[in-house]
């Protein structure tokens, strides 16, 4: 036990020695969180629109007002023909062109039964997400306007036109549908990966690089003491980052923490088994720090983040890839984070995720320790 303690103390000394590293370990996560919290917003509104109104009647102006009044579209300019709208779409001054051909007003005036009025919407598809959403808004506005036009206003109006089905949405856990509530807790999983997977792998490889690992090996320390001693400080930093991120999420971004903080900490420790195991595993596979960080960042972190449901929902993935995600420990932690923060879930709901993290984590850590011991011999 004493040997173990000495290794931990040595690691802490080394961290303190590396003065600039401490702020980086604290500021890095904060920066990530602020960036994600403020920038990550997939809501689409105020789409810059260039107007091609070849009709110029009260009816066409009403339609334009409906577009701009919806809040989804903002008028960026107006040109006389559709051809002249193209440069606007090319250089990005507008993302959508609303084309109202001449005769629109007449067709509207003719009422139902006449020639249906035509409207064209050109969208810049280079940003496919925004284009899909924008076209959806346009379709909805036109459907509403169309329904009003179709509804006869005379006394003989059919009663049923007033009826129809109305959907009353009830949104749980995040009633205002703030995407920030979705993204900010996700930072937790990423920060912990950085601090408890990449950093330890680099710390171990660094001793390899400098040659001090050899010196430690010839001391009477048992391999497990060396492993635990090297990893323990990162657990401490990880927990500090965990509390920091949770605090900022709660107080700065107003993300509710509906479940128990204690449960969050406990389940995060299970998650750390996985990240530490992976970090140690990486350190046994590479020889330089550069390789260690490249490997953990790009071969592990990026794919794991993408395949965990942290940002992109797993339900949208093709079936075979969904199956792959079961092997990604971050997947379970993503459930835990969302469950505890937003849904207020307890262990009664989260136990399968806890079990999975425990299982995969134990497996990874064992594998890594075996390889590490072998590399010591």
């Amino acid at each position, binding site marked *: 036990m004493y040997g173990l303690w000495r290794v931990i103390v040595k690691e802490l000394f080394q961290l303190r020695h590396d003065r600039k590293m401490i702020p*980086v370990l604290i500021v890095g996560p904060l920066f990530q969180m602020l960036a994600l919290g403020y920038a990550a917003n997939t809501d689409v*509104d105020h789409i810059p629109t260039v107007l091609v109104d070849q009709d110029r009647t009260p009816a066409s102006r009403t339609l334009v007002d409906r577009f701009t009044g919806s809040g989804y579209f903002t008028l960026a300019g107006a040109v006389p023909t559709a051809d002249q709208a193209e440069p606007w779409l090319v250089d990005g001054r507008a993302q959508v062109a609303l084309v109202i051909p001449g005769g629109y007003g007449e067709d509207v005036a003719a009422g139902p039964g006449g020639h249906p009025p035509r409207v064209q919407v050109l969208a810049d598809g280079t940003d496919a*997400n925004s284009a899909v959403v924008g076209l959806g808004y346009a379709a909805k506005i036109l459907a509403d306007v*169309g329904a009003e*036009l179709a509804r006869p206003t005379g006394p003989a109006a*059919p009663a049923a036109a007033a009826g129809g089905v*109305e959907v009353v949405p009830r949104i749980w856990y995040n009633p205002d549908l703030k995407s920030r509530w979705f993204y900010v807790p996700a930072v937790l999983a990423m920060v912990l990966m950085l601090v408890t997977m990449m950093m330890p792998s680099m710390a171990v490889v660094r001793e390899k690089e400098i040659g001090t690992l050899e010196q430690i090996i010839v001391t009477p320390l048992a391999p497990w003491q060396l492993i635990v001693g090297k990893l323990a400080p990162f657990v401490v930093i990880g927990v500090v980052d965990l509390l920091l991120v949770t605090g900022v999420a709660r107080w700065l971004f107003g993300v509710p923490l509906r479940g128990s903080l204690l449960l969050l900490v406990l389940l995060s420790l299970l998650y750390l088994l996985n990240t530490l195991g992976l970090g140690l595993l990486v350190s046994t596979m590479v020889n330089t720090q550069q390789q260690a960080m490249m490997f953990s960042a790009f071969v592990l972190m990026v794919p794991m983040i993408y395949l965990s449901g942290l940002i992109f929902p797993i339900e949208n993935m093709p079936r075979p890839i969904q199956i792959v995600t079961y092997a990604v420990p971050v997947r379970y932690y993503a459930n835990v984070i969302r469950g505890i923060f937003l849904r207020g879930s307890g262990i009664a709901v989260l136990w399968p995720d806890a079990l999975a993290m425990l299982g995969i984590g134990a497996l990874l850590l064992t594998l890594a320790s075996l390889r590490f011991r072998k590399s010591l011999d």
Partner: protein
Amino acid sequence: MKLAKLRAVAAKEYRQAARDPLTLAMLLGLPTMMLLLYGYAVNFDVRHIKLAVEDRDRTAASRDLEAAFFNSGYFDLAADLPAGTDLARLTERRRAAAILVIPETYGRDVAAGRTARVQLVLDGADANTATTVLGYAASVVAEANAEVVRAELGRHAGGGSAAAAGGAPIDYEPRVWYNPELKSTQFLVPGLVGFILMLTAVLSTALSVVREKERGTMEQLRVSSLSPGELLVGKTLPYLSISLAATAIILLAARVLFGVVVRGSYLDLFVVTLIYLIGALGLGLLVSSVADSQAMAFQLGASGSMLPAILLSGFIFPIRSMPLAVQILTYAVPARYFLVVLRGIILKGAGLAPYGRDMAFLVLYAAAVLGLAFARLTRKEI
């Protein structure tokens, strides 16, 4: 600056890079991996939403409504719930992302021509998906309502009139340019180029300089007869070529795997990429002038270049939707301009002419960062 010395430093750096095939393989393999991930695995296209139904009405009308939901292709039936089920249990265990609750009075209201209300419970924990689901539900119901109105109108107009035959009241013609099938891969490719170039250029440059600092070999290089300019340019040249190779790999892979074709000119593409890369290499040098250890260089490089290139460039999240303060911040992110120009060249077949302002910003950024890096690195002991 002597060409022979420059070449000698570059050759040394090339050799060093070649001795680390793992890193090289990762740098060159990463673009393809990211492309595969984006192309096949992840997207925001919400489909197969798990919808549970609590039908308390169980009439023909309520079944019609359910059919309208499931026939839309967006929803999959997750469970047919008996009345009085604990709905929270369902969403909490994520068995259903949405629950449609049809009240007992639904069939009667529809028959009487009154507004019939149904409730849609949504799991808002994933706000993006929930927003999309809400949109789908609205369009499904709007469609169903339009059908009813059309049928009514037809009856009142006395059968065979034009109104009965006339389809939607407004003939809406959406047309998508540049990416008619709205494939996300099309618009992700330029974003990936921007992101990966930042990564390879900034990180590898910063790491290669800091590694020499860490090992003490930088001192040896400094006491040689090399001028600081020769040393720095020579060190960055190999990473310039590796990054260009990575760009070529992305474009090739995008073409082979996803049929993304460069519509504009390759020369324009090369010019803008080169300017962007020079800025990125400058940033790498700047990072190396601050960091003492590789771990620190990585942290700084990642926070200073990669994250903004992903988050603040309009790659995934539209800049327009950000708060004003963050929007202003994006003007300092070169990837923002690079992406606009790149999308123009690759997808719209445009030249550089419409993007004079963006190009000017890129040049300005490259000059500023390089100037700053050189000033720092040549002033103090490297």
